[in-house]
């Protein structure tokens, strides 16, 4: 039976030491997109995992179409018409699309598979909802956006009429988000109920019919999207006013700090990802690099940081040639690097907060003398960093992997900025970070600019690039399409990100 309404009443979930959900009421009905908004750790995912029966609630009840439902497992939830699209896709990469859909289903041929029957139905669903995807393609060969469609098809194939979408846009490019929203609208208009989990305000505004805001496990507001705005939602979410637009003083541009000449570098597969790339960043300015993921941004950052070999060209920092030097040498030249891969390149997961904070400086006085640690100095140093950069951690000895993404990023910033760098290389500094921490990180970047640091900001978040940068360089297929002012129109930037030069993309204007 299709879902008309689903209601969670007074749901609480207690983990050892944490009350993740506190007397939460929530409902969704057929034909609406209900956004569940909240910071990381506000309890959104926990609540939805309760609805999908991955967790048992400590107290509270779930009603489906007005009747009390006892859901014991995700399979149970699915049998009741509830499907969940996880943030990390639950797909078998080596399987075809159809095999992924057929997996775990009863076959019409008993023990034998009936992939041709499944293929037909997949194609029907694809046409009906605009979920175009090649049924016999191997999943690992598909773009992330297409993989997401496979997940949706999987749920629909199992007759789900309520779809829970857990941060579905986190992995998508701006273009993919647009197509994805079209699909969501079509699903809604066909009479499905959708729950859209997000912490991105503009997305919630763009796609939802109603919004429920969670903070610290409690519902702090529920509004019709038409009756609210980003500012109000942000206030509900964080509990105070949030700055999203920064009034920067005009740039006090100093000498050129970073100078890249005709740089080329290959990606992990050995294909040239950065080609003949030239750029200058001056002291006291933020240069933002915008572009769709996979256009060489990662390789560019790593090449500058000394973590990837430059196959051609030269990189100068303060007139010093740092091309193909080791990361330690580059770092010693005054380059701070906030890498895109926070958990693998930014920190050592198993190390403590203190150990991570001294990764670069641990071998030198005052932290060490003749190769022996001075724990008093280390303790003082780390205590100061944690306090100055507002890293929320139970202690200095807490393993970094148990901190939230925002706090890990603050710790990385603390480590990198405390050395008073000449050049700050920030790659996706706020990806997956909650709005409070994002605001904080932005504040620090602007502070660096005021201190005369040259800042190279690489981000796929166009809003972020526009809010912070003095100049924006748009990158496409390893090259700069153009350098424009941050006041350029969104559409022009979008076109440039697709490789098309806009009219005002004239480097000489800024």
């Amino acid at each position: 039976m299709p879902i008309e309404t689903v209601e969670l009443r007074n749901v609480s979930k207690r983990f050892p030491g944490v009350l993740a959900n506190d007397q939460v009421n929530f409902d969704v009905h057929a034909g609406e997109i209900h956004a569940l908004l909240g910071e990381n750790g506000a309890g959104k995912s926990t609540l939805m995992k309760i609805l999908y029966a991955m967790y048992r609630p400590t107290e509270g009840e779930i009603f489906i179409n007005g009747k009390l439902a006892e859901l014991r497992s995700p399979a149970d939830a699915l049998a009741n018409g509830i499907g969940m699209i996880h943030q990390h896709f639950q797909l078998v990469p080596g399987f075809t699309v159809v095999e992924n859909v057929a997996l775990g289903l009863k076959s019409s041929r008993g023990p034998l598979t009936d992939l041709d029957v499944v293929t037909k139905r997949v194609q029907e669903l694809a046409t009906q909802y605009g979920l175009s995807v090649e049924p016999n393609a191997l999943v690992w060969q598909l773009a992330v956006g297409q993989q997401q469609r496979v997940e949706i098809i999987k749920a629909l194939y199992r007759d789900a009429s309520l779809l829970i979408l857990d941060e579905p846009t986190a992995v998508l490019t701006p273009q993919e988000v647009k197509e994805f929203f079209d699909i969501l609208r079509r699903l809604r208009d066909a009479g499905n109920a959708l729950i859209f989990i997000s912490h991105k305000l503009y997305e919630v505004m763009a796609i939802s019919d109603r919004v429920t805001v969670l903070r610290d496990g409690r519902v702090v507001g529920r509004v019709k999207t038409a009756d609210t705005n980003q500012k109000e939602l942000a206030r509900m979410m964080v509990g105070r006013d949030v700055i999203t637009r920064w009034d920067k003083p005009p740039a006090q541009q100093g000498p050129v700090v970073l100078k890249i000449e005709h740089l080329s570098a290959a990606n992990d597969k050995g294909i040239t990802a950065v080609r003949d790339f030239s750029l200058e960043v001056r002291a006291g300015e933020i240069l933002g690099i915008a572009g769709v993921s996979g256009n060489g941004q990662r390789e560019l950052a790593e090449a500058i940081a000394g973590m990837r070999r430059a196959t051609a060209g030269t990189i100068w920092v303060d007139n010093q040639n740092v091309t193909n030097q080791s990361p330690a040498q580059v770092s010693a030249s005054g380059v701070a690097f906030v890498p895109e891969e926070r958990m693998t390149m930014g920190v050592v997961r198993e190390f403590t907060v203190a150990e991570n904070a001294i990764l670069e400086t641990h071998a030198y006085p005052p932290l060490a003398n003749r190769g022996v640690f001075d724990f008093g100095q280390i303790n003082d140093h780390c205590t100061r960093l944690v306090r100055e950069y507002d890293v929320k951690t139970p202690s200095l000895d807490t393993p970094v992997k148990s901190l939230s993404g925002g706090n890990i990023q603050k710790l990385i910033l603390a480590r990198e900025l405390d050395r008073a760098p000449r050049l700050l290389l920030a790659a996706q500094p706020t990806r997956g970070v909650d709005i409070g921490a994002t605001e904080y990180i932005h504040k620090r970047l602007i502070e660096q600019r005021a201190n005369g640091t040259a800042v190279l900001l690489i981000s796929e978040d166009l809003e972020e690039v526009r809010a912070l940068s003095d100049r924006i360089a748009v990158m496409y297929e390893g090259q700069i399409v153009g350098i424009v002012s941050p006041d350029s129109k969104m559409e022009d930037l979008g076109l440039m990100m697709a490789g098309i030069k806009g009219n005002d993309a004239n480097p000489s204007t800024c």
Partner: protein
Amino acid sequence: MLEQLLAPAVIIGVLASGIQLATPYLYASIGEMFSQVSGVLNLGLEGVMLVAAFAAYYITWTTGNYYYALAIATLVGGLMGLLTAFISVTLKAEQGISGIGIYLFGLGLSDLLFLVMVGTPKAIDGVPRLEIPGLSDLPVLGPVLFSQNLLVYGAFACVPLAWFILNKTTLGLKIRAVGQTPEAADSLGISVSQVRYITVTLAGAMAGIAGASLSIALLNIFQQNLTSGLGFIAVALVYFGGWRPFRIMAGALLFSMVNALQLWIQTLGIGLPSDIAGMLPYVLTIVALIFAARQIVTQPTALTKPFERGE
């Protein structure tokens, strides 16, 4: 020397005994393939084969009934497979290390039982040949392909059967999914443990048949460490075959043909030191594995990783 080897009788002999020698490898590797494709490295095959080989030998020696012997060997293998599954799936033990444990356990147990229950090696009558009427009279092909014992035919029948199960059944789909992305399978209501119990137990049972084929159909005797590394070669053959049944068969045949060839070299008294000749198949395995490793595409990514549900 070459003329001696190229004599028709020798060629037929090498081919026929090569096919016969491939039998235990096929049973063990095909079983192991199921286990590995589902994500469990079953390194203890050798130990399972030893215990089952003894069981089959003992039953044949005492009752003379090959069917009983085979059934008991399969059962013994299956039970040891179940034990392996319990250790690797339920207890989530490190599979390489626990596999060595199973091997040593099987080696010791089979030797102990043999000393207590039999004492000194005594030859038995092996499973008789089953001449396929009509076909066995064909020149060359007859003696090579159609004049073997039942276990040989069975081993080769396993290959297409395994391919079919893996690629054309819902069980096969589940096995492959569980070995690649157990989280995805779990999210669709498939019990990862259940699937792995099935495959690991199956691998044990088939290792049991492999052991029996060695002790009652090939060597027709039991002694300490009868298998002498055969079970480990079987594990290597699964990698060599890239987890695909027909390629595993090709590997098993290649290996056993070289083995048959070196045995003939030794019997013909060709001037090649027997130790060197005996090393040939193993050298070949290593070389083949080096090349095989380069073109692996279908590796079960969750191999050796116990499944734990994330919270």
